[in-house]
């Protein structure tokens, strides 16, 4: 019984560790945004603050903005070049994290 419990816990641990690594990778991408974008700013900025772009947007809407950059459906100076580094799945997960921040 003890061995079964140990095996179960180790499997859960491995799965959770993998999820954690993936969440951290997306979080690292998220904080990369902060280099160029202010998280929140009251004044208008040439590179817009994230709150000015993302507030009131759903995770799906945020993902669509990023996908439009990735697939050149939306013109930009460098966002198209950056978004191409991300898999579509990355973009959806990043959008979820960005959205979660806006509703905190």
């Amino acid at each position, binding site marked *: 019984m003890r061995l079964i419990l140990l095996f179960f*816990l180790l499997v859960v641990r491995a799965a*959770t560790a993998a999820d954690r690594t993936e969440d*951290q*990778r997306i979080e*690292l991408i998220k904080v990369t945004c902060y*280099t160029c974008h202010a998280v929140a700013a009251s004044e208008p*900025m040439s590179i817009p603050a994230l709150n000015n772009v993302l507030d009131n947007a759903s995770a799906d809407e945020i993902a669509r903005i990023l996908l439009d950059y990735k697939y050149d459906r939306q013109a930009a100076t460098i966002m198209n070049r*950056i978004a191409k580094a991300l898999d579509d799945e990355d973009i959806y997960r990043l959008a979820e994290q960005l959205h979660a921040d806006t509703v905190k």
Partner: protein
Amino acid sequence: MKRRQFLRTIAHPLLCAGVLSPSLSSCAVRGNTPAHIVVIGGGYGGASCARYLRYFNPDLHVTLLTPERYYYSCPFSNPVIAGIEPASIIRHSYTGLAKNAGVRLIHDTAEGIDPDKKTVQLSGGGQLHYERLVLSPGISFRWNHIFSGYDREAARRMPHAWQGGEQTLLLRQQLRAMPDGGLICIVVPGPAFRCPPGPYERASLIAYYLTQHKPRAKILLLDANEHFSKQDLFEEAWQQRYPNLIERIPISAGGLVLAVDAKKMQIQAEAGRFRVNVGNVIPFQQAGRLAVDSGLTDESGWCPVNHQTFESLHIPNIHIIGDSCIAGAMPKSASSANSQAKVCSLAVVNLLADRPPGEMVYHNTCYSLVAPDYGISINAMFRYEEQRIKLIQQAGGLSPLRAAGAVRRAEADHARSWYRNIHRDSFASP
């Protein structure tokens, strides 16, 4: 299994993996005291690292050790030299890191590191103990390397202005004082050096200043390189905005400088001897002095590191980020330092919790101003793969050639916005 044994053999690893608790901060606790991380160096790398260590684990004790109360940045020092921006724009306070990020600030100089005792000796007396140490010591100059006659004393007459602050203002003052019709010479060192597009942005903005105030003066670039960052974009812009004002001599045409005589204001290059009115001599560079003195550099003068964690390949528990480290294809820039700081912070937090460092993603964006209304950019994304920082091929790139004026104006505005935002991000300022 006894309860204590269960806790030791099963529960603790599960806690660390997040199975039993969403918070992992306790895993970075040694005994009853949270781990203490010391960060040395108050530039973009060090400030960002101190901030993001606390971001990824608010329970960590983080001390930022930097001698000055203000940081004078190299980014945007060129617009200051050209009189486009006030000097105050490159001065940054550390108070945001203390107030908004909970970082302890110590304004002192590290005299040395004892990696066995894990201590940093302070010049003001006393020492700091660390669990892990992060160094972001920037660059130091290789005086009298390749070309003779250039040392600290010579830099008072022919400023390098490659570290922000006093040297920036000296070069600006010399530009203002020089006669119309004079010659400004910018000496560009060989690789690797901080901010690869910097000398060419500087030439561009000095050219802008000359068109406004001294239209008969000229700029000469004596360059120890054949090619340079954003070369096609710069040369296109020079042709459009500053025709016949900037002459560049690459290394193949004799651009390598052999000797400098600061008293006579003469520069001897392979292409000949030049008498100049303003000499901006940027010396060859290596890792920051503390990294060199601590045995963290290799024969190149820079610090080899594990690309996933930025931990030194020479001394364990010491991480090196920013200009001093060898980071594959990442250039030595403020943006790279900021990105490396985030990666290193995450790695340190995970290592303290006995977890794998993480899957790392890195970024660099670099804007250059050619004129106040003319900006260009280069950017790249990287990932950790096969034990290296590797460029993500399908991403990144340069501003387009032959772009409309609106695109150049937008990128000039973005450059100013980027500068404000990286400052906020790195220094936790409001």
